[in-house]
Structure formats: C-alpha cells, structure tokens
C-alpha cells in the first residue's frame, strides 16, 4: 500500500468524524431558508408565475463565490498591472482600435450597470431561495463587471497615448447621439419593466445571444489590433456570463408551471430580441470593422454564427419544449447584420464632433476589404466617404461637416423613437421601413415596423425628449464645450476626424461649420415614398 494511502487511513482512524463542510452541503439547505406569510410577494410582481421550487444550476454559497471570483480578480489585475505594464501595452494598440474602446468600454459599463439593477429586480420578484441566491450572485457579478469595464477605461487613461475621452466618457456621453440607444437597450431594457421581461432582455437575449459576439469576438479583434488589455478583462467578464445565461434559462423554467401566462412569453421574447439587436448589431459591427486596422472576419459572418446559428438555432432550440419559437423579426435582423453597422458608421462620421473619439474615414485598403465582403458597399458608402474627404472632412480649415452635407442634400437624420438611435431614411441600407406618426400634436419617427409596433402598443413607455429635441438650438462648438469635450489646452477637441497629431480641430474650427442643432422633425417635411 502506498505511503499516502496509509496516511489517509491513519488520519481517518484518528479523526473518524468529518471535520469540514463542503459549500454544496450548505447550498442544499437554501430552499428551506424561506417561509410563507400573508404579504409575501414581489414588490415588483410579474405577470408570470415564478415557481417557488425552481432550482439554480450553479450552486454557489457566498463564501465559495468569493473564493472563485477573488482568484479571477487576482489573475486579471496581475496581468494588467504587472505583465501588461511591463510590456507597455497601452502604447502597442492601434489608434483606430484604442479610440473605439473609449466608447465600447463605457457603453458596456452602462450595460453592466443596468444588469445590476435588473438582477436586483429578479432577486425581489423570484420566490425560490435558490433562484434568489443565483440572482444575488449576478447582482454582485454586475458590480464586478462595471468595475472591470471602468478598469479598462482607467487603465487606458493612465497608459494610452491619448487619454482624453477615456478619462471623462461618463460625462461626455451625455451629448453622444448614439448613447441614448445604449440607455434604451441596456440602461432601461434590462430593468424598466416586468422582471421576467427584464430577464429575457438581459439574460436570454443580451447575455445568451450577444455576449459571445460582443465580448468574445471583440477580444479577437482587439488582440489583432494590438490590444491585450481588453481581452484580459473582457474574457474574465465572460467567465461569469455562463452563470447569467443559466439564470435566464432557469427564469424560463420557473414560469412554465402556469400555461395561462405563457401566452406573453413569445411576444416578450420577440420584443427583447429586437430591442437588443437594434443597438448591439449595428454598434458592435461598426466598432469591429471601422475601429480596426487589421480585420478578422466580416461582422455579418460572426453574427450569423453566434446569433443566427448558435443562439436562434441551438439555444432557443432548447426552449422549444416550452413552446418558444425563433423571433419573427429574425429575418429583418439578419439583413441588418449585413448593412446596419455601415449605416450607423456613416452617421457616426457625420456627427463625429459629438462622439468624443478620434475617427478615421476608411482608406483604400479598408474600402477594398469592405467591397470584397459586402458587395455594393463602395457604390453606396465608399463614394460618399471619398467625396467627404475631397471636400475637407479631415481639414480643420475646411468648415466641412458630414451632417451638414447630408441635410443640404435632403438626407435627414432622425431619431428612431423606440430604439433612440439615429437613422437616415434615404441613405440607410439596413432593414429600414421608415414611418412618421403623430400623437398629441407631436411627430415621432420610426425606422422600421417592429419598433413602431412596440410604441403603438405602449406609447407611455417611450415618452422622452430625443437628442435633437434636447439640444435643438445649440451651436455645435458650444455643445461640445459644455459637455467637457475639449482638451486641457482649452481649445483642441477631444474628438477628431482623423488620427494625426497635426491639424487637430479646435473649437474655432468647429464654429466655422456654423452648425446649430436642428430638430429634423420640424424642418424636414420628409415622408416615406409610397
């Protein structure tokens, strides 16, 4: 007998009673932790019926959770603050990518923050102690993820050659016309509504469907462009996402006991998918393809693999037993996956002073790649970019603005009222079918019928002033200055339409454009062609 076995036998003989408790032994008692009383229900009750006997898949106690996460934190921050520091990682990133990370890190931070509150909502509504335990772990996870996204910005602000924008995006985003789209999908889609609806948005769609392309694919593009900071953090985030996906699955399992409420589920899934897709598909695609010097694979292809095949096929396939089908809007989303990010990029270039980052128009090399992977791209977008460049898009003395160019040619920029994202009815190639509706004397723009239907059914959920209404009448340079979009010299803009360190635009250059924010709904009598 081996010496080690003898030692074990001897130890057992000396200590016949087990002297430790496995966390799993504690977890199995969790379902007994609660009790019934008359008033007991969620303060935020759901229209569904969540089963008190639902179990969670990842059975973690608080201490075991902390042990696991602490190890991940040590690895992550050790890599960031030791390994990557010594490799001067902040100065190995291509500027195109580094600049887009100013938006990506902050926008994802907003998503994680929304997820924190959304998970707390589920923690309240669920009646099963095990489910509560799982949602609580997600609440704390989301604190972690906010901290992590912020750590990317914080790290970049200390080590990257252009910290402007990383340091203050939490302020600067207030004037970014793309940011309300983040708020709609992440900031409120995850938490402002029925808890199960929030779970579907957060866990079943955003996390189960889009974190793979958002977090995993994005890290591949990051590394290709010299960024090892983002993969270090984002892949560590992704290790928690599996538990969140399981929480989403268990949410669905928990409501299956009442067939009367199941009639809501397909509609909630369809709406959630469209809500999340409407922002994530164009934004992630634009970040990957327009924020990179070195391309990995066309976004449409990644989207097809992760969203269409993996999520809509395999993941939702598991839920077929509960009567769930793929969202009806999936076909339109598939069309968006090809063109919507190009549409959004065009608007981002047109509105560059408001983004807070340095953008660079696609060059010849990019154009060839775009045309090879998206046939027809050059005729539609490439020629516009060439014309803009020739008219002085990059030149601070030109007084040129893509937005003014569009408006002067009747290409109005509107805000889709349901998604809160800008769109251009005449230049968009995504799944657009614009409409303009009126309610209580106010006109509302919609880029497609899925969002329009959501508004028609619940208009009170979308009562707000959009970007143009908020800032109508503001002169552009005044707006940028007021939002903190100026560098420490007091005049040079944080946002730039090129990546050079020379010919940087200042407030005076911006003033030369002579652009006052309009409300297109007032000045353009545009109607969709019949």
């Amino acid at each position, binding site marked *: 007998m081996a010496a080690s076995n003898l030692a074990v036998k001897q130890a057992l003989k000396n200590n016949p*009673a087990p002297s430790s408790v496995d966390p799993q032994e504690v977890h199995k*008692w969790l379902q007994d*932790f609660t009790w019934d009383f008359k008033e007991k229900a969620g303060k935020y009750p759901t229209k569904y019926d969540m089963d008190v006997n639902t179990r969670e898949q990842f059975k973690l106690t608080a201490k075991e959770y902390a042990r696991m996460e602490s190890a991940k934190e040590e690895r992550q921050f050790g890599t960031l603050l030791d390994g990557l520091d010594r490799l001067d990682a902040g100065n190995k*990133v291509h500027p195109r990518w580094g600049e887009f990370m100013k938006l990506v890190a902050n926008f994802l931070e907003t998503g994680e923050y929304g997820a924190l509150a959304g998970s707390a909502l589920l923690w309240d509504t669920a009646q099963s102690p095990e489910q509560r335990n799982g949602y609580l772990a997600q609440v704390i996870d989301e604190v972690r993820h906010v901290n992590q996204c912020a750590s990317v910005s914080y790290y970049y602000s200390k080590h990257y050659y252009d910290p402007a924008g990383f340091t203050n995006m939490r302020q600067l985003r207030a004037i970014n016309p793309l940011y309300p789209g983040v708020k709609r999908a992440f900031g409120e889609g995850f938490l402002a509504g029925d808890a199960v609806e929030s779970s579907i948005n957060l866990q079943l769609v955003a996390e189960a469907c889009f974190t793979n392309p958002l977090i995993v694919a994005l890290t591949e593009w990051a590394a290709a462009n010299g960024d090892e900071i983002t993969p270090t953090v984002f892949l560590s985030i992704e290790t928690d996402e599996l538990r969140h996906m399981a929480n989403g699955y268990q949410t669905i399992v928990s409501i299956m006991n009442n067939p009367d409420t199941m009639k809501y589920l397909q509609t909630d899934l369809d709406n959630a998918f469209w809500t999340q897709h409407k922002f994530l598909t164009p934004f992630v695609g634009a970040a990957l393809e327009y924020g990179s010097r070195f391309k990995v694979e066309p976004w449409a292809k990644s989207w097809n693999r992760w969203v269409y095949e993996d999520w809509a096929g395999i993941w939702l396939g598991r839920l077929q037993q509960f009567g769930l089908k793929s969202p009806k809007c999936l076909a339109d989303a598939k069309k968006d996956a090809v063109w919507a990010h190009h549409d959004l990029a065009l608007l981002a270039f047109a509105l560059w002073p408001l983004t807070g980052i340095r953008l660079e128009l696609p060059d010849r090399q990019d154009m060839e790649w775009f045309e090879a992977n998206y046939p027809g791209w050059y005729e539609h977008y490439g020629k516009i970019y060439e014309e803009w460049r020739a008219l002085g898009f990059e030149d601070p003395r030109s007084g040129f603005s893509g937005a003014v160019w569009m408006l002067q040619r009747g290409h109005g920029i509107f805000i889709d009222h349901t998604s809160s994202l800008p769109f251009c009815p005449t230049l968009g190639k995504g799944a657009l079918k614009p409409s303009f509706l009126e309610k209580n004397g106010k006109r509302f723009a919609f880029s497609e019928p899925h969002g329009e239907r959501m508004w028609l059914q619940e208009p009170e959920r*979308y009562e707000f002033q959009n970007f143009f209404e908020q800032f109508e009448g503001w002169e552009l340079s005044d707006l940028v200055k007021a939002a903190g979009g100026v560098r420490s010299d007091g005049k040079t803009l944080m946002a730039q339409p090129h990546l050079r360190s020379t010919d940087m635009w200042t407030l005076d250059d911006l003033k030369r454009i002579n652009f006052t924010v309009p409300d297109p709904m007032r000045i353009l009598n545009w109607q969709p062609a019949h």
Partner: protein
Amino acid sequence: MSSNSFVRGMVDPYRQTIIQAAIPEQPLESKRDHIPFAKRGWRRLTEYEAVMLHAQNSVDSVPGSQEVGESVQKWPGGRPNYSIESTAVIAGNWFYFRDPAKRWFMPYVKQKTEEGQTAERTMKSWAESGDAGMMNADWRNQILGTHYGALVYNEYGLFSAHSTTVYSALSDLLKTWISEAGFDKNDAGQMIQMERILLGKLFADFDPSLAAAKQAWMQDPIWQPAREFVQHIWMGVYDWVEQLWAIHGIYDHIFGQFVRREFFQRLAGLHGDTLTPFIQSQALTYHQQASDALQAFCVKMLIDEEPVYGAHNRRYLRAWTKRYLPGTQAALKAFLAIYKTLPLQVEGITCKASVEAAVRRIVNDWARRFAEPIDYRFDAEAFIADVMQGY
C-alpha cells in the same frame, strides 16, 4: 477563433511596425486625471471611486447626475427607473455618498475569501483538536439546534429586504454598498447553517435540519415580534432609505447586535462552545461595515453635509426612528425570554443585572451612533426598563 492564421498585433513585428507608425511621438493629452469632473471623497481619487462613481446612466432629475435628459424606456404606465420619488428624503447630490470601507468588488471578495479560508481552517481545527468535545450538550441541541437556526431566518429575511433597496438606490456607489450589505446578510445565514451542518457531522444527536428552527421562528414567542418586524421591513416598506435606516440603523443595530454579540457570542463560551463566537464575529464585522456606511449615508450625506435639505431629511429620519423603534423594542423584549431556557445560569453573566447591562451596552451604542446625530429624543432608561420585562 474564427481564423487559423490569427495574428496578435502586439507581438507581431509587421503589425507593430504599422501600429507604431500610427502612434504620435508624444501623448496627445497630458492630463490623465480620471473622471476629473467628479467631486473626490478623499484628497485624491481612489480606485474605489474610479471604477464606479458616475457609472450610473441616470436622469437629470437625479441631482448630481452627469446626464442630460431622461430615461428612454419606462415601466408600463410610464414610470421611470431611478426615480427620486422612490424615497421621501432629498439630496442635493445623490453621488456624494462614499463607503468608508471603500469596498469595490476586488477588495470586497478578497476580504470574504480570507474570511472563508479562515473559517474553513478554524472549523477543521475546532473539530479535530478536541474543542468540539467541550460543548455543553443542551446548549448544542436546544440553543444551537433551535434558536441559532431561527437566526438563519432573521438573516435571510433581511437579505431579501435588500433587493428593492439595491434596485431603487439612486447612485452607483450607494448601489455597490447596498449590494454588498445584502450579500453579507445572505452569507451570515449560510455560515450559521454551515456551522450547524458541522455539528450534525460531529454529534449523532444533533439534527442540522431547519425544521425545529423554522418552527421556532414561526411559532415560538421568543421570535414572533422579530419575525413580524422582518416581514414588514421585507414586504411592507417601499421607501428604500426608510428600509435601510430601519434595518441597519435601528433593528439590526439593537436586536441583531444583541442576539449575535451579547447572546450567542458571549454565552457560547460559557457553554464550552468556541466555534459560534468565531462564526458570529464575521457577522459582527459585516454589521459594523454596514453601520459605518449607513452613518456616512444618512447622517453625513443626508444631514451634516447636505446644504439644503438636511433639516427635511432629519425630520424623516426621526419619524422613521419613531416608527421602527417600538417594533425593535418588542423584538428584543420577547427575545430575552430565551435566558430562561439556558442550560447554565451563571451569576454575573446570565443574571438580570448582567443582561440589563448587556441591553444597556447595546442601547447606549445605538443612541450614540444613530439617535444623537439626528437629535432624536430617546428615553433610554424607559426603553431598557420595558425590554427587561421580557427577561
């Protein structure tokens, strides 16, 4: 990986050449101060603030927010999230709060991991070294078997009450602290059960199930006012600041501290139980941190350093104190009947004078920390006298 020929730009010489050619010779910006627009809680920006402060995308009706405008998706019916109507107190800057312990995620889980590892080693040592054998059997089976288990329900109910306070809290650093306080309550309940499971392994006559504990929590007069209080604070209160004040500022600082510290921690040793004081010391630490943060929030932020609404907030905190003190008093008064069930009665520890001294310690500490700062008129002697009728 979507490509077999994947290249890492950081270490690929060709790509780095292109990248370096695109990087300016000098940094484009010399100022690297993070969130420069934010008011610092300490002389310099801490990592705790850098990774969370102003992360919240809120509406401009939440004072202190960086946002312009409002939330773009509401609840059915049109109610927004992060609404200042979620509480009666008012702040000129909801982002002013700072947790004195500066706990963001990493230090938080690190602390808990260390506590978990220490607990694991302590329990093993306690079980193997003979300490376990010192324990009075009646204490083990009656008190730990029943009443210590009932404390699980107290902690679980208070943990559950944190869900809506996390949801409703109006700024990011508040949400962080409240999430951690809720997590600690869940942990405290689980650690009690962990100890009870170990006892079940070591002693054949100890039942680690929660049946008797639940029965005590539901029916034993010792626990009924406490259960009613917890149920009310969990499901009956919708103002999230009121909830936090009632939980950490009143009930847990009086009833919770008495049960954990003056009863279980103090009397366990008397009965040869050296493990329970260790387990409860972690819960006491959690309460101390929650208590400090609540003071920073309700006293420092909402009253002492609130330039406009301090008087308004003080009125509400006083009113809430008046509302929740009687329930807490009743809970403690009923709990004192537990002394009659103790296996050992020791003069100087379990006698009336000693218990009264224990109540006084708790009440005086509470008054110093929470009643005096809000100028709450509190008759400590009358409170103690009433509570002692339960002995």
